[in-house]
């Protein structure tokens, strides 16, 4: 299915992530970051602190916390819409709005993946993921909005409970045809546009079981994911929403 | 005369050229008791010389200004300033407050804070002349 070209695609961020089975050290990441300088002039060192709290049930009262810290590099274009994030075990390409279309985004990924491999060399890949975050801004014409007119993914509640003021839903589905897992999230978010209500629609499609290791298979997978992503998106929005993307 | 930096200049469409002054250029800082200006007529010489000397005085008091750059000086007639303020029901006092490096330094006192229509009137009606900082050369030792 070819990508439908909307005049105002609701994409706020598109991400391609390659995750590795074994991490690189800080020095290697810092050096690799330098290779991206001409495309992403701005560099920021970043530290990712992961805190996991274990709150046991039952008779135990002891709470445990684990802190995992990893250092990486974030590089961005001057207008802050194109980013590359280099972590010890992740290579991430991000595109903020305005979305330039899959062809341009994919070409950027290919270019940067080549740069990364030239600097780092081969590392076993443990996960390949693509994420598209959309925000659908719906003009408010009255006190209530029938979001079902715009979205096919939403929280369904009995009418007798009355109107909903907020919701968030998440679902995980297998995409067996391409051996991936789809995580779909949607919900109401604060709108940055006056007199609008905004809904996020977030797709994360990833392959974790036997992900491809060579470039041709990686590129094929990404293109397959893109096709699936488009089908899922078109399935989850209505014609009325499409009219918002093509004013 | 008052120094107005690029951020407080009024620009044309697309922000390319400075065409005047924003009202905020005449807004009192919270810590200020009066609006800092320079009295051009304080010094000797013709008008061009007085303007130049005034700029030099301001630069001496505020070395960060220097030569070049995109800032401007707003020039207004004292009588006109008072008239504009009076029309907005404000009676200001303009006092000479010489400083060691800037003998022409003066202050416009009793300007109300946050009266945007008055500030707009000052920007539009009172301070009607603009001189570019870059048009005034750096002072050479022994010039003044």
């Amino acid at each position, binding site marked *: 299915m070819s990508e439908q070209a909307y005049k105002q695609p609701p994409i*706020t961020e598109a991400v391609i992530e390659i995750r590795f089975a074994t991490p690189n050290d800080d020095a290697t990441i810092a050096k690799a970051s330098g290779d991206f300088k001409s495309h992403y002039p701005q560099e920021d060192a970043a530290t990712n*602190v992961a805190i996991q709290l274990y709150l046991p049930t039952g008779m135990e009262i002891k709470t445990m916390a684990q802190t995992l810290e990893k250092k990486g590099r974030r590089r961005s274009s001057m207008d802050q819409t194109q980013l590359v994030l280099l972590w010890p075990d992740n290579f991430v390409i991000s595109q903020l709005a305005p979305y330039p279309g899959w062809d341009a985004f994919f070409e950027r990924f290919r270019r940067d993946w080549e740069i990364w491999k030239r600097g780092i060399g081969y590392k076993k890949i443990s996960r390949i993921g693509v994420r598209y975050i959309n925000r659908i801004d719906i003009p408010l014409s009255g006190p209530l909005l029938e979001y079902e007119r715009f979205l096919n993914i939403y929280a369904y509640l009995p009418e007798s409970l009355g109107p909903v003021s907020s919701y968030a839903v998440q679902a995980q589905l297998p995409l067996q045809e391409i051996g991936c897992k789809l*995580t779909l999230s949607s919900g109401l*978010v604060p709108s940055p546009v006056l007199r609008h209500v905004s809904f996020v629609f977030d797709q994360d499609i990833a392959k974790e079981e036997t992900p491809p290791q060579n470039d041709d298979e990686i590129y094929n997978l990404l293109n397959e994911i893109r096709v699936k992503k488009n089908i899922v998106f078109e399935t989850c929005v209505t014609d009325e929403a499409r009219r918002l993307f093509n004013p | 005369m008052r120094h107005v930096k690029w951020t407080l200049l009024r620009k044309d469409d697309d*922000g390319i050229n400075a065409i005047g002054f924003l009202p905020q250029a005449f*807004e009192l800082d919270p810590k200020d008791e009066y609006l800092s200006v320079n009295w051009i007529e304080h010094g000797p010489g013709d008008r061009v010389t007085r303007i130049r000397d005034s700029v030099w005085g301001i630069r001496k008091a505020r070395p960060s200004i220097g030569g070049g*750059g995109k800032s401007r000086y707003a020039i207004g007639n004292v009588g006109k300033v008072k008239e504009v303020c009076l029309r907005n029901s404000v009676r200001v006092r303009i006092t000479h407050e010489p400083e060691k490096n800037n003998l022409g330094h003066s202050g416009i006192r009793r300007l109300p804070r946050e009266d945007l229509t008055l500030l707009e009137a000052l920007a539009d009606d009172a301070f009607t002349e603009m001189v570019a900082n870059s048009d005034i050369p750096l002072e050479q030792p022994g010039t003044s």
Partner: protein
Amino acid sequence: MTELIVNTRAANTVLSSSILGADIVRQIGKLGSKSSTSEINIISTDNAVEERLFDALSRVKRLTAMVAMHLDAAWRQNLFSQLDGLHDPAEWELDDEPVKESSFATFLKAIVEIRPERRPGLGLSQAGHLIAAWTTGRDRLTIEFLPNDQVRWVLSRYYDDEPVRIAGQMAVSRLVEQLAPYEPARWFCRESKSDLPAG
């Protein structure tokens, strides 16, 4: 510059660099997963002037990306060019404040709603509030964008050589309604610049 990303999310989805991504994870976290999940934006720990200006510009450019689908490319480009000019380190004075994110958010809301054809000249108040100014002949409209969705505006309109000046301060959601009696098309529309006589 060192930046800190605090990430308490279980790493089973693709990392997002955007503000919206972080917000989504917070919302999903509220669905009741066992581990505490949230992503917080980066925190700057250095404060040299140039880095401070660069950081401020980066933040507002990322903020622009949130509504970039509602802005045309030329508008965005000019906006960034003017913002860069307002934060030129060569013109900067130590007690100046770079543009505040909260002020810029108010500006974006106003611009997306008004959709002016004519791009304003931008300024920056001492407190870091963005100012947008339109000028048509002798007529002037100046809007200062404050935090918390507030705006402060003043206009001068000339009628037979006499100025009428009006000022106001209100929520940005009421700006269009408040400006309506003063023919804002005079400033916002391209035709008005050349066709309407100067006041």
